[in-house]
């Protein structure tokens, strides 16, 4: 029996992928080397790790408005997370996800998703239903 968690209805298509989880925040401009596809800010808990094709599970969105353009640009170049899951996003990442048609959800009924999910979890995110399923844990 898979674990199913409810969240606020989100943005983007249904996706399945592997979670990369950290109790840290996210900004495409501040935190990423978008050419290499890695976290590049030394103080970030995911420093040095690849974000490509991962479902990022983080606390909140930080920093400037550039992320709104950058998500689409990252998607066009094919080096992009599969989805982003926040405890609670700011407006920029929601706007950027809508522009890029990238999957994004937040506001979980059970609380902070960085405590609900673990790196390596296989997740199915269904934004329209406000539902995330952990496929490889019972």
């Amino acid at each position, binding site marked *: 029996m898979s674990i199913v968690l409810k969240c606020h209805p989100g*943005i983007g298509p249904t996706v399945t992928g592997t979670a990369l989880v950290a109790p840290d925040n996210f900004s495409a401009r501040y935190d990423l080397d978008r050419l290499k596809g890695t976290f*590049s800010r030394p103080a970030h808990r995911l420093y040095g790790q690849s974000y490509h094709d991962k479902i990022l599970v983080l606390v909140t969105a930080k920093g*400037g408005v550039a992320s*709104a*353009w950058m998500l689409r*640009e990252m998607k*066009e170049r094919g080096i992009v997370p599969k989805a982003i899951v926040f405890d609670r996003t*700011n*407006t920029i990442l929601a706007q950027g996800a*809508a522009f890029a048609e990238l999957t994004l959800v937040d506001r979980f009924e059970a609380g902070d998703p960085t405590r609900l999910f673990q790196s390596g979890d296989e997740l199915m995110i269904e934004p329209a239903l406000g539902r995330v399923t952990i496929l490889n844990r019972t």
Partner: protein
Amino acid sequence: MRLGEEERAMLAGELGSARQWAIKHQIAVGDFFDAPEFVRVGQAHIMADTESLGPSGVAWLEALAALPSAERRVLVPTITDPRGLDFASYKRLKQTETMADLEARTIAAFEALGVLMTNTCINYQTILPPVLGEHMAFGDTGVVIYCNSVMGARSNFEGGPSALAAGLTGRTPRYGYHLDEHRGGSKHFAVGWRPRDLADWGALGGIVGRACNSYWEVPVLSGLETPPNSDELKHFGAALASFGSVALFHIPGITPEAPTLKAAFAGRPSPAAVPIAAEDIAQFYASYAGNGDKVDVVVFAAPQLSLLEMAQVARLLKDRRIHADTSLIVATSPEIKFAADRLRLTQTIEQAGGIVAAGVCFYQSYAREMAEANGWQRLLTNSAKLVNIIGGYGYRPSLASMERCIDSAVAGRVV
């Protein structure tokens, strides 16, 4: 979302494909944040530097710009944040012709959309400041937090595509800081120490921002009884927004929606205050120390400098010479640059060996590529916002007062 007649017409494509894209995008965002309806805005302000846009974003803008004039032009005054490069100084900064070409294409596309290329993140000091209660669709987090907090305007952080959408529709979804329910204070900080200069104000913003760590928190600062000036609040707000993603603050007795502490919390009881002391500021500086290190580049930017800051830089550099192994860059708005030229401030700064760039703001200017091309690592600045951002671009940032920054630029090492 409830839609009016004109909004339904836009959605149906009756006002052209640009406005149809714009309102669809806004409805997707509005639904995500449970917005009940749209609200008309006085201005839109677009962050769209070419590093963020990338070639695909520029091509997307050009496709909009190729639409018939009546379909593509913005409906409300729409202005721009700093650009990716300044055509007058990009060669000295070793930015490339490819970057310049992309920049020229972006400007042409925005002009075709009817956007005014103001290229500034200090529009509230230089273009047309909003007034109390005015709804806006502003990009640049520093612009939003200043206008919300110091002027009592109402805007969310609007990313580039959303700000452009607001320009094309003349409205934005009514959610977040457009609503009274989000504007009351949620955290309380008691400042037991008076910041001495702009770097200190930025450091204070950084400390409060780290403690808030959410777009949805509204900090209230007590203990600041003498009004800070516009540049001080500019650095404080920019750092608070950068470190904490915060979009609104109140200072009782100083900012317009907080005549009293009680009003700052919208009549709710004030939470226990978190004290901020001089030691906290010292610790903040220590986390960006670099004493004795060779300094590669000194930057005054983020936000762009006001005319008074330009005058201060010029005064401190007068009759001095920047070290041969150190670069010094000052970024300001085009309007302030004209004034600085007229008042011979630019001349004083450049005679000392500095570069005055107009319409850009360092970190939005291909910072990683500039570091590689110029061999820059150690960066010194009086902007707390910049030290927060620039580490991700491979720099080793240090924070110091403007005076120490300039003394270090002359010495060639952090003094």
